[in-house]
């Protein structure tokens, strides 16, 4: 996301310096056609319902976003200040494209939209630290008959 050359130099240097540990596996799975897919969004944007517990500075938990929650009820408490929030302030779908997904479902381009979506807060932890959360979310998504996940950064 974003070209390094489009970033201020100080931000580009910071991102390039991050250690990205390799993963051992390549978890490829085939599935049904898109028109039969039940899609959920899992975002790392630190979103939650207004009134729900805010994300802490270092937080490996998740928050539940019901699929029928009005977009107006979503707020962001991501701990990083190094990305733009004015886009999300103007349009929830820029970060959490729930209306766009519902439109595709209504048009028959995807099978259905999941009953529940989820947010984590994508900063301050290493991949292995959030693995228990990922495993729990995988179980919840399977219970919701989800067979396609849109893993969306911010």
């Amino acid at each position: 996301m974003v070209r390094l050359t489009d970033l201020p130099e100080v931000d580009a240097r910071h991102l390039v310096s991050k250690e990205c540990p390799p993963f051992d596996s390549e978890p490829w799975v085939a599935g049904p056609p898109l028109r039969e897919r039940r899609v959920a969004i899992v975002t790392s944007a630190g979103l939650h319902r207004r009134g729900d517990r805010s994300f802490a500075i270092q937080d490996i938990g998740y928050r539940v976003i019901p699929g029928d929650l009005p977009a107006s009820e979503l707020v962001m408490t991501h701990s990083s200040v190094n990305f733009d929030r004015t886009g999300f302030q103007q349009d929830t779908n820029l970060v959490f494209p729930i209306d766009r997904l519902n439109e595709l479902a209504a048009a028959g381009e995807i099978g259905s939209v999941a009953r529940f979506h989820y947010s984590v807060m994508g900063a301050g932890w290493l991949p292995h630290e959030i693995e228990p959360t990922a495993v729990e979310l995988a179980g919840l998504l399977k219970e919701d008959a989800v067979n396609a996940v849109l893993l969306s950064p911010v």
Partner: protein
Amino acid sequence: MRPPRFLWVPFELGRPFGAPGDPAFQTKVLRAVLALLEREDGPVILDDFPEDAPATSEDAATGWVCPIGLPKPAAASEPAMLAEVLREVAQLAPWYAYAHEARGRSTFGVSGLEIEPVARFLHAFFDGMPGNPVAGVTLGEAFRLVCEDLRSWYLEAATARPGAGAATSRALADWFWGETAAGRLLLALQTICAKSADDGVRHVAVSQLVPRAQRHRQINLQSGDST
């Protein structure tokens, strides 16, 4: 990292689906990433989305000036800082109210405080450690959430004016941090709270208060480099 299906997009951080208020473009991005589900050339598919987000050219980036004329802020150390922030709030309030009504939502309020208590709580750090106004979280977390609220309120007001849609995120950030008393307040708090006796407040001041690019910009401005 070798994910099964990955779509790289060229959009700035914070805007993964392109542009606000552009459902057609957002849908184009969404269709592009969902289309990866029907590809069979795995186990690793890494694709690039070929288009930039609309209205990100340099022509659009230059020339935006916040049309809400705010008085030039005083030096951060003056006691009048709070009064100046409250004056700005009064001037911006109609636009914040309009933004809230027009969009049907606001991201302000994660701390649970109204805007004037937000300003008063933050200014109180000049006089020592204020009490925690947010139940259920540490003082450091409260500090972070209140700072988030101050920024959100100002930027939602600023982007409500006609023409503000063409403003880049950088122009908006430069305006907040460089031209408002609220921005000056937070910049001053970064220095003060980086020495706080509270670990949480200190951590927020050092790493979660002022964006890295804005810290760098302030250093350059003080050294005479206007870039």
